[in-house]
């Protein structure tokens, strides 16, 4: 007797004692299932024949009678299966490109493999099972055999290949993965491209619906921002530029970090950022938009300067070790904690400063609290240019010392609750235990606090001072303030001075 085609399988035993308490009911189509399921792989073309999943068009092979098609109740989203088909052929992001860009040779290097590693989920019907008035006959039923002490899924005795049509019912019901099968409608049917399959044996219908729900609905689709946290290597994958993936990461991450700076009580900027650009808020605040632009130009930037190895990248957006392309795998909570810590050091350094500029700002303000030297109307620190300049200096100095300070060794368990201020609080506590990092931040802050942070409109400036400070106004002010502060720090005979000299050298200032 000719041996029927079969697929070696694994049996995955899954059962718990508590499940014995579940109220099974054959009457409600919830009969007690087997204590596990099978896993196997089979060519997509064979699976299509055994499941009867075909696109429903008039020019098909002999159409399956509606009652023989167990999948008829599911709607086919053609665009989805087309997308999967293109992905299988060309990978991502090429499959997502508009047609015009695909024709353009410029993007041909974006083609990648289109792996489908996630398994279809099917149910193997048993002889006698009834679906929509039709009963599965024995010759149309698949069976589970045993070969060399391993289970195997055996095709029906009537099975004749890819063009096979059962007389009664298809033996496999697809619970999840129909669109993957539909995607193969237009692909080369001679291909032996296999798909992994999870197969339940004789699962009652209500459990199939339940399985569909738990597989598709309950898992939260992760946001791009979380994806970049869970897989930090993504931050440097340049192919993501083609689909604006990296820009989305940077924008989203910058916004999230600003929200943390505003929301977390330990932050010097707690409730001191103009989050929605409103006027008439009473005290001077830099807008959220300005903060986001500044973070995108500093900590979350990809690269600045003359390319890798010569310029400086964003601590949260570029590889800190050019040889291995390794990125700092800090989560958003860690990144927020770091920003809060450097600003705390900055605020404390200014508070402790006896420099003339700080004394002058305090003398000019009637209220000592909050510190006018840091938050006041005439303070450059609490301005668009000041925020940018300080972030730029801290980013660049930490970038060039990242390995010395072993920033990469600071790890924290990931949480999907990425909006939690508690998590940021915990990260701050942990960061403060890293003495070398905090001490370096402190030295940077103290060095920065020596510079004059008065705006050109501050009272009491001499004409020479006013002209000097005027250089930090407007768009040019962003770079001017950074260069000025780095050049001041260069003079320090300390690791900070050394780092500043390295940054100046890399940028050629």
């Amino acid at each position, binding site marked *: 007797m000719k041996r029927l085609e079969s697929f070696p399988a694994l049996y995955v035993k899954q059962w718990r004692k508590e499940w014995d308490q579940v109220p099974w009911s054959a009457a409600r189509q919830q009969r007690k299932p087997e204590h596990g399921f099978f896993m196997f792989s089979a060519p997509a073309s064979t699976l299509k024949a055994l499941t009867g999943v075909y696109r429903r068009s008039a020019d098909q092979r002999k159409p399956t009678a509606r009652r023989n098609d167990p999948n008829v109740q599911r709607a086919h989203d053609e665009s989805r299966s087309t997308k999967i088909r293109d992905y299988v052929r060309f990978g991502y992001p090429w499959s997502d490109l*508009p*047609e*015009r*860009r695909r024709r353009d040779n410029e993007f041909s290097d974006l083609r990648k493999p289109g792996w489908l590693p996630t398994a279809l989920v099917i149910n193997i019907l048993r002889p006698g099972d009834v679906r929509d008035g039709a009963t599965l006959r024995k010759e149309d039923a698949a069976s589970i055999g045993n070969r060399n002490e391993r289970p195997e899924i055996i095709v029906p005795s009537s099975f004749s290949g890819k063009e096979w049509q059962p007389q009664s019912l298809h033996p496999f019901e697809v619970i999840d993965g129909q669109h993957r099968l539909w995607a193969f409608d237009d692909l080369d049917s001679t291909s032996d491209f296999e798909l992994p399959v999870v197969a339940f044996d004789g699962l009652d219908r209500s459990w199939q619906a339940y399985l569909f729900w738990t597989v598709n609905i309950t898992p939260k689709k992760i*946001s791009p921002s979380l994806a970049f946290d869970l897989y930090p290597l993504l931050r440097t994958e340049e192919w993501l530029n083609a689909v*604006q993936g990296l*820009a989305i990461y940077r*924008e*989203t991450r*910058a*916004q999230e970090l600003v*929200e943390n700076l*505003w*929301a977390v009580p330990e932050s010097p900027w707690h409730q001191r950022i103009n*989050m*929605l*650009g*409103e*006027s008439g808020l009473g005290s001077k605040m830099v*807008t*959220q*938009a*300005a903060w*986001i*632009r500044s973070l*995108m*130009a500093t900590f979350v930037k990809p690269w600045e300067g003359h390319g890798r190895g010569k310029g400086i990248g964003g601590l949260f957006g570029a590889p800190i070790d050019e040889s291995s392309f390794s990125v700092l795998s800090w989560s958003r909570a860690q990144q927020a904690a770091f920003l809060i810590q450097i600003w705390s050091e900055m605020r404390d350094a200014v508070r402790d400063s006896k420099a003339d500029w700080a004394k002058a700002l305090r003398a000019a303000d009637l209220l000592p609290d909050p510190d006018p030297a840091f938050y006041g109307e005439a303070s450059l620190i609490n301005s*668009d*240019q000041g925020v940018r300049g300080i972030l730029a200096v801290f980013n660049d100095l930490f970038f060039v010392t990242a390995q010395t300070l072993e920033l990469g060794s600071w790890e924290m368990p990931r949480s999907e609750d990425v*909006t939690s201020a508690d998590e940021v609080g915990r990260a701050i506590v942990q960061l403060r235990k890293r003495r070398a990092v905090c001490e370096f931040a402190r030295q940077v802050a103290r060095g920065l606090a020596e510079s004059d942070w008065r705006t050109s*409109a501050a009272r009491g400036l001499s004409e020479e001072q006013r002209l000097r400070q005027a250089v930090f*106004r*407007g*768009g040019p*002010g*962003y770079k001017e303030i950074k260069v000025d502060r780095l050049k001041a720090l260069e003079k320090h005979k300390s690791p900070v001075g050394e780092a500043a000299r390295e940054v100046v050298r890399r940028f050629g200032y």
Partner: protein
Amino acid sequence: MASSRLRSANVRAGSIQTIAAVLARRMVDFERHGRWLPRSNRYRTDTVSRLEKDVGAAVVAERDLVQYVAVSVPLHLVDGWSFWGRALGAYLQGDFASLVHLAYYAELRAAMALLGSAGIGVFSQHHFSANTRQTVLEVEKRSKSGRGVGTHAIVWPLLRARARHRESAEHVLGRLRGGQASIWDWLSSFSVGNRVALSARWLEAWGLDLIEDDHHQRNVASYRPSALREHGSSSFTDRVEFVSALWSLAEPGAGRSLAVDRYLLRAALRQVVPTQAGLTLAQVIQAAAANAGEDLGVWLPFLSAPATHDPLPLRIASESNAADQATAGQQILARAFLLLRAAGASTSASLQGASGVSSWLSSFGIQRCLWSETQTAAEMVDRWADLSETLGRLRSLSAPPSGPSHPDWTVVAGVAMGEFGLVWSLANG
């Protein structure tokens, strides 16, 4: 002009996708050769007269016309923002006649950009839509005389008709952002019908000055000596404040958003409440923030604020029949700004698949003296600091005790660079 003159099906047939695809190809040509249209394009020069001739002979060069409509989308926007900026300068100088003219044309060009992105081209007496096959259809029924309705008369009915399409609404609301999510997505748990109605209502309100019957003000400004008309009591300080308020709404945020977007979001949510039986504003905001994936704690206080908290330009944009020129000037400037914002959103959507946008904007900025050397997108966005600085100087010069003062033209000219509005709408900072 009655909307009944329109061929509704042909208006509907205008294809957003066709325009986006053709525009993407044209951007490639522009990047390589510095040309918006190929030399062979029949309508590159003498557009209206050639088209008139071709219509008469029934030999319209359809592909050429579609190309023209496509490239006119960003180029109408360029002109619209430029006119608006000069209108702002005129307002600041108290030149209300010029203001009305320029602001009206800013609105007209914004509307033509909006229509263009929906595949509709307006050409003096002949107006067409470009469909999915890149052929063109007339959007107006011919009168017995065979003459069509002119540009000024047809833009409003076309805008009104097209604004009621889901695609067009999504094209605009999908690019106005609150945080990381578009207004369209913020409102995604409310019906599509609500969102389309909202977008249509806005475009109709902002395009008020384009209604043919309402060209009275423009005509008065065109033909009557302005010194003989009632100027109103607006001081220079008042005008500076209004200009500052308007420009503040143009502060660039992430992803081509402008500050005005979040105020529009607020207005949208307020307008959705009456359509949701039993829901309070807070509940609507909560649902919307969940859709958008945005932090309710950040947004709730802002989104809950009443309309009286909106900046002055937004409060007066829907008003008309002002008693004096100064107030009328504010209203038309506000409407023009909002219509340009909507047009910027739809143009940005049309340019989504195109390359070379940043380099075009950079060289455009050099031509228009916004900057003197090539800029990256982030640098173009950073120019906000310069404008903010100029507005600060203007405010300090006009404020007591040193004011009211009328500073020299260099400061006034600085705030008339409406081109920044274009750049910030389209540059991906």
